[in-house]
């Protein structure tokens, strides 16, 4: 007999979590390992508890289920995800071909059983479709970075800049610098218009620009909040930067 399926429950409503817990108790070969109420908790707990399946509510405060699933998909050993929703037509549409990826609340026991038996990771295509159709858009609210031991979630609002550096992108954040494997180009697309490209290798948060200084050769440099050094603005992008800052203020 195989080991019991380890299951993590994420829902912001306590009664909804209780109900799923109780249903799981009645199923064989299932082991409830933990519960949480936000997308952030989903990621932390999944990182700690290494569940096989995450039952993930779509609508939650803070980080929603769709974004949490995107981050989960980037894990080294991603868990399977089953979305639970009271009524999100777009989510159902995303799974039209494959009925095991989501459950409608109130969840029926048989359906939960079937979904757990066939639980898989959402495919890349499903995730892309979900993100596209989500009312909150494809823009992440957090970026997940892995430090030595733990998973860290950086709120995008707090990020000062993304600096490209050969293979990696460095995130400048008040908590320090973090490396991620994404292209500056895709980050620029995702976080437009809150971030502005000032150089081939630098994308900065418009809201954290403290000053734009003139430098000796007639070009500009940008100083970010909480930072002493300045980032050089390329000649080509200087005009656009000034226009965006004026629009901001």
């Amino acid at each position, binding site marked *: 007999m195989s080991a019991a399926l380890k299951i993590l429950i994420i829902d912001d409503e306590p009664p909804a979590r209780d109900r799923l817990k109780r249903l799981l108790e009645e199923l064989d070969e299932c082991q409830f390992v933990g519960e949480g109420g936000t997308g952030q908790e989903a990621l932390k707990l999944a990182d700690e508890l290494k569940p096989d399946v995450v039952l993930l509510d779509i609508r939650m405060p803070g980080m929603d289920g769709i974004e949490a699933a995107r981050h989960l998909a980037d894990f080294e050993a991603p868990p399977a995800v089953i979305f639970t929703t009271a009524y999100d037509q777009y989510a159902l549409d995303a799974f039209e071909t494959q009925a095991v990826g989501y459950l409608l609340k*109130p969840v029926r026991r048989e359906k939960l059983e079937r979904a757990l038996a066939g639980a898989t990771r959402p495919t890349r295509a499903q995730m892309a479709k979900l993100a596209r159709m989500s009312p909150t858009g494809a823009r992440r609210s957090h970026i997940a970075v892995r430090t030595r031991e733990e998973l860290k979630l950086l709120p995008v609002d707090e990020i000062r800049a993304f600096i490209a550096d050969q293979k990696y992108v460095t995130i400048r954040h008040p908590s320090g610098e973090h490396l991620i494997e994404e292209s500056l180009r895709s980050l620029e697309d995702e976080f437009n218009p809150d971030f502005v490209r000032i150089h081939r290798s630098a994308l900065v948060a418009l809201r954290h620009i403290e000053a734009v200084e003139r430098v000796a050769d007639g070009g500009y440099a940008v100083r970010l909040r909480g930072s002493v050094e300045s980032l050089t603005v390329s000649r080509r992008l200087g005009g656009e930067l000034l226009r965006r800052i004026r629009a901001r203020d």
Partner: protein
Amino acid sequence: MSAPTAVQPEANNSAFYLPDFCATRTVFVVVLIAQLVALVLTLAGGNRDLDFWIEHARNGAFLLWIALGTAFVLCAVRKQLARLSIARASALVLALIVAVTALISELAYRLGESFTQPGTELGQLFPIEHGPFLLRGALISFIIGALALRYFFVTHEWRRNVEMEARSRIHALQARIRPHFLFNSMNTIAALTRSDPQKAEEAVEDLADLFRANLSEARAQIPLKEELEVARIYQRIEELRLGARLKVEWRVNDVPMRAMVPSLLVQPLLENAIYHGIERLPAGGTVIVAGERNGDMLRLSVANPIPTDPHPREREGNRIAIANITQRLELAFPGQSGIETTQTAENYVVTLTFPCIELP
């Protein structure tokens, strides 16, 4: 407290377009029309023997009598008019206008004949020929009367359309209980059925009451007490679901509970406060429902904390609810109600102001 005057839609004959000529507002409109006609007559007349202003004063005074006389007569026969068909009532009103004009004209002529000498300065103010004077007056009053009736008819039709539109929106809003709310409540009840059957039972009762309030024919107005009760029922259901995240503070001790308000005034605001505010905050927050009486006016406000989050939730639902409440308040208290929304970095507040009308 006076009873509402303007909010008495014709129950039996809603197509009846004539305004209430007993109402000050209508009398004012009638007097205004009369004075405009007087000005036109003076401008067109060009009587070289009389000073322009004296002639205008004469015309104004004359038409004022006709206007007030007409309003008086129409006020007196209003009930009878309401029973007639539109065409008959209109014809009768026109006939009455012409009759009143003829009567006042006749009186004016008699007055001039008996108290003044022709040729004197005072005598110039009064008509000289009898028949033609009456005929002219009758014709002019017929034309102006017809135009005025047409004006009232068009205004009434327009108003009726606005009302019907408002009513259909009420129905649309009532039908549009948020599916999320429904299914989440069902889920909560499913969870409670085993863990706490008594709470589950109460939840079902609350849900039934809430749906009944939402589905019932839109009664024009209900006592504030009833409306707040519906909002409290809604609060109880949401508390089961959101647990300690939802707190509602009621500061309504100073408002008269018998004050009449349009139904579903507070509950949709509370729903929005939870949907756009509390539900989006991981730690929840407090909604404040406050009411105060200010002389003849009532102020109700609903305030909620808002999340600082990069994805502002679809505000569409909120806008529809606010527009709907605005329209229903305006229908209930024409020209006397106000709705105001203010948003700061942390808070969103909707404030309603309307006349406090208590039933005895």
